[in-house]
């Protein structure tokens, strides 16, 4: 891995913690130093535990400390998940043997093993999620605690599935632990960067077109479902968005836009802006490895690349995190990517679902118009 100036994306250890801490009934123990503990603890706002190892435990072995922590946690009737950080991972200790007397999940996801998505997937694999043919409904996935929109996404897709008379299966990863092993046979996504891979994929819920396709598929596969109300709502809200965007375009040019986000959200933003505003999507700087798209895209990992791209493209509108906002606070900006600091958000906002598209377009129009006042 090459050097990187101001890395923009969290490490694998944080990803593992984000996955596991989303499940009720799991106690997550970060096996490492206090420094490694504090970041996911503050990022995820989840009650994580830690071993807070010290130098002597690195020299003489961390078994005693790890077991001491596990003993203290014994009796709270929760499954313990131990997440390895960089130093314990290279000490050469046989942690699995150490833990043989405990009923724990061990996730080997040190920071140097990759980015947040890597750790998230490793942790999810360690939980061994599986489909239970007896479970009704459809799973929702992509709900990662790291994503400030995940709570809003889950609420929104739960609402839409309810409108379509479809029960919700397991929510990956924001559910009770036992439901991970009893997932429904089909799944819809809210953020494919954190897809679970469990069940048959029915489609995404990012963007109105995608939602329409996904709910048509649900209607075809589930005879007892009724996607009609959802499809009607999509048509109605689509019309409202078109009207608002059309009015904007009567006075203003479409925004020249650069987008910095996870690939899934970034492509949602790009398609939505192109579709409704004929926006010029100058560049997508994907935080993770990008997939196939017709837009100009690259894997942007460091802040210096962000600054250079913004300088190069000179966009009207920047979509990204508060890192991107700091480059030039005078430009129109939409926060879509964590971290979105310096903004107070108490209500659960969505990116997925119909509400997600409405909020996104609303934010874009207001930001672009505010700039021109």
């Amino acid at each position, binding site marked *: *891995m090459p050097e*990187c100036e*101001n890395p923009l994306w969290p490490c694998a250890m944080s990803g593992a913690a984000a996955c596991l801490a989303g499940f009720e009934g799991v106690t997550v123990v970060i096996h490492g130093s206090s*420094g*490694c503990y504090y970041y996911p603890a503050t990022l995820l706002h989840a009650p994580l535990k830690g071993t807070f190892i010290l130098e002597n435990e690195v020299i003489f072995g961390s078994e005693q400390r790890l077991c001491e922590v596990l003993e203290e946690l014994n009796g709270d009737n929760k499954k313990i998940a131990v997440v390895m950080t960089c130093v314990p991972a*290279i000490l050469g200790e046989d942690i699995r043997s150490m833990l043989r007397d405990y009923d724990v999940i061990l996730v080997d996801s040190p920071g140097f*093993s990759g980015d947040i998505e890597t750790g998230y997937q490793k942790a999810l694999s360690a939980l061994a999620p599986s489909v239970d043919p007896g479970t009704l409904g459809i799973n929702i996935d992509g709900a990662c605690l790291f994503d400030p929109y995940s709570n809003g996404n889950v609420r929104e897709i739960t609402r839409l599935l309810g409108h379509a008379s479809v029960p919700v299966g397991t929510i990956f990863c924001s559910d009770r632990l036992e439901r991970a092993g009893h997932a429904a046979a089909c799944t819809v996504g809210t953020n494919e960067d954190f897809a679970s891979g469990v069940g048959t994929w029915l489609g995404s819920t990012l963007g109105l077109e995608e939602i329409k396709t996904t709910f048509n598929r649900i209607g075809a596969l589930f005879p007892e479902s009724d996607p009609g109300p959802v499809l009607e709502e999509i048509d109605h809200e689509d019309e409202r968005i078109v009207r608002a965007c059309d009015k904007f375009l009567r006075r203003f040019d479409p925004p020249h836009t650069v987008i910095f986000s996870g690939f899934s959200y970034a492509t949602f933003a790009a398609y939505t802006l192109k579709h409704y505003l004929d926006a010029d999507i100058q560049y997508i700087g994907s935080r993770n490895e990008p997939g196939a798209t017709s837009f100009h895209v690259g894997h942007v990992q460091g802040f210096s690349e962000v600054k250079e791209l913004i300088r190069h493209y000179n966009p009207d509108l920047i979509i990204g995190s508060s890192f991107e906002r700091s480059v030039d606070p005078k430009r129109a900006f939409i926060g879509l990517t964590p*971290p979105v*600091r*310096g903004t107070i958000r108490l209500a659960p906002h969505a990116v997925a679902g119909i509400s997600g598209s409405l909020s996104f377009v609303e934010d874009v129009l207001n930001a672009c118009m505010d700039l021109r006042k």
Partner: protein
Amino acid sequence: MTLNPLPLNLSRFGGCTITGALSVTTQVRDAITIIHGPKGCAHHNFSLLHATALDNDRISLPDLISTGLSESDIIFGGEGALRQTLEGAVRQNSGAIFVLSTCIVDTIGDDVAAVCHGNLGIPVIPIPSSGFLGGTFHNGVNNALNAIADTAEPCEKGPYVNIIGEKNLEYEVEENYAEVRRLLGALGIPVNVRFLRHSSIRDISRLGAARLNILRDSEVRTVGERLQYRFDTPFIPSFPVGFAGTIRFIQEVADSIGVKSARAVREEKSLQDEILAEFEDIAGSSVTFDPPGMTSDSLSVAREIAGHFDITIDHDGCMVPLQVSPPIGTNGIRHLLHRWRRSLHA
């Protein structure tokens, strides 16, 4: 329980040494900081510094470069990656480069100091900060301040003071400095260097010019001692705390620099009397404090304030807020009293 961070066992829960070191090095405007370790360590701290900067109404971000160690670097050694990153950083024409080590590079045995040694054309300053292997957050702060202080040379002294070891991640950092500067202004004494906050390499070179160093608090005492040894500069061990402590601070600073303090003391006592009159309505109340995490200085200031207002401290009293670090100077107490009044009248 020892699974959650409590302030009682600082060696285990004292935070990351790199974060402490970065809270210092990122305040040098014309320097670059390299974090020798996996990308995650740099991201965690970059994100944290971003958050605290926004809290202080600053939107600029520090220049941190991660050597981005991968699994193969961990196996075969990361010195090559550091060397390569250093070469790239030198080309950026900064005033200095600070190199911070992480837990993992100390564990695998990279010789960071040796890689930094050599004529690269600009100062390259290794700072021991290998996470929990190097100590706590405060060790990181002290290691960074000491390493950077060593770059300055003795110079001619003048009637100035240096401010040493401000807590750059503290929410009230600028307000605390403003209070100290107000008190120094009353004595006609200018600040030479804020070591280290919003400073440049050139500012740091003047570190030895002050006649007195004012430490933020006792956590940077070793830095004060080192500066005294190197530049023969005496120090006051803390920013002013409490009404009486503030008066004492004015007198001590004046004595050290050799100026008269009577007028400044009289004006400060007058301001303190105004505050006592302004908050007269809370006199005679009954309060209680939430002590975990508070320093003894915080509690002693709270007791001093309570004494001025005949406030009873009682378990059944109204819970009023305290700060982890005590309020600074007379105006710090005024801010705290507003919060007490809000609680008492809630």
